[in-house]
């Protein structure tokens, strides 16, 4: 049986790891090198590294540092931030990423998703969708690290990138991110029900129970957490033990 993945997400800017709240008030919380080393030693299911400043600074994540990080990383490693072209993807894969994560480009030049799928296979193309709740109760997709409204709903965008060949969707609630108050279960469920590809829930995880909730009620296939693993004593290993004890298939 396919196991539920518990995925630490590293939000990266320059050389440090960041924590924000609602995609705002970012502060430095640690070193990426150290975090990658520790998570790999603990044999996490997968690691995601997102350079949160890359798109607005019109650049890729530092390929040399990605290369160094990948040297310490014997677990599946996904990297995102500022990816626009197939050449960008090739450089990151060459540096040691196993998958790439595209967000802004998947909205502004969605053909990139099809290009990645055609050249490297769908499993290599993770599309990250950042969504905010709007005043009339619906949801809207934001790009550029949560700063730019697109007029798209997460469901229509998710269906579109699925049709273009995305392998997975990393779905983040902008408001919940960094708050540790729980995932946006409704958002996750809307998207997971609309597509046939895997949906990784992100944004807001603060307890193991939040993970169980978004897996059951939100129908996510995997859970990502960032602040929780940086700021609390909770660990991916304990999270999986908790999920196992509550009847979820995990790799222990």
């Amino acid at each position, binding site marked *: *049986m*396919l*196991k*539920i*993945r518990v995925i630490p997400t590293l939000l990266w800017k320059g050389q440090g790891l960041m924590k924000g709240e609602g995609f705002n008030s970012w502060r430095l919380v640690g070193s990426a090198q150290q975090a990658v080393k520790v998570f790999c030693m603990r*044999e996490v*299911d*997968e690691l995601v590294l997102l350079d949160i400043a890359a798109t607005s600074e019109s650049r890729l994540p530092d390929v040399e540092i990605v*290369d160094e990080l*990948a*040297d310490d*990383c*014997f*677990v*599946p490693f996904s990297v995102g931030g500022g990816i626009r072209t197939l050449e960008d993807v090739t450089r990151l*894969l*060459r*540096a*040691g*990423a*196993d*998958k790439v994560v595209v967000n802004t480009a998947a909205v502004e030049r969605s053909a990139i998703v099809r290009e990645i799928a*055609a*050249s*490297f*296979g*769908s*499993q*290599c193309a993770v599309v990250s969708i950042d969504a905010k709740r709007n005043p009339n109760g619906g949801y809207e997709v934001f790009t550029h690290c949560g700063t730019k409204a697109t007029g798209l709903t997460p469901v229509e965008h998710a269906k579109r990138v699925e049709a273009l060949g995305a*392998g*997975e969707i990393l779905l983040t609630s902008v408001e919940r991110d960094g708050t540790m108050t729980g995932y946006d279960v409704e958002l996750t469920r809307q998207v997971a029900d609309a597509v*046939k*590809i*895997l949906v990784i829930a992100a944004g807001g995880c603060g307890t193991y129970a939040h993970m169980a909730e978004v897996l059951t009620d939100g129908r996510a*296939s*995997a859970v990502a957490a960032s602040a929780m693993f940086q700021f609390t004593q909770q660990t991916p290993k304990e999270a999986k033990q908790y999920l196992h004890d509550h009847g979820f298939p995990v*790799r222990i």
Partner: protein
Amino acid sequence: MSFVAIIDYGLCNMDSVARAVKKCGGSPVITKEVNDIDAATHVILPGVGAFPDAMRNIRAAGLDIALKRRVLEEHVPFLGICLGMQLMAAMGEEGEKAEGLGFIEGEVTLLRPQKDERIPHIGWNQAEHVREHPFLKDVPSGSDFYFVHSYRFNPVHQEDVLATTPYGGGFPSIIGRGTIVGTQFHPEKSQKHGFQLISNFLSFR
């Protein structure tokens, strides 16, 4: 020491395979040179990517002829990983029909999701042994490995299947015939059990 040629056909990250080989005591070289394939004691064909593109690149570099000679005639141990395992098939289909290396008779087809399953099949899943083979030494049946794929390899001869994985109705996740072996998952990303498989492969002579 094992001199391991990791075939570079321009489509994926091979560093993690090289690092895993090193950790398991082998001496890896990432290469697209026939000379290296000739000198190697072991050959690994890694891969993520699309079958037709991969075969085109392999043929364009003349690697298919060198690989067939070394593996089929000179019996150099061969490990195909993920797409690399699928490329061992006689025929593949990923968007279009394409001819593979033909090391093990079979064809590559799209995984068919069963109820509540999603495709691509991404994440950790177990490999259940269906027969004994030196490649599986010290790896318990049911161990979890890391998968990322949408296609499956269907060997013509069931005795080529060493392990299966329960997804899409069940598919062959480890195949092998003598010292020609393949994994649908990524042993280089599967930690302890993955490294054990690579070590077992390196012990083939």
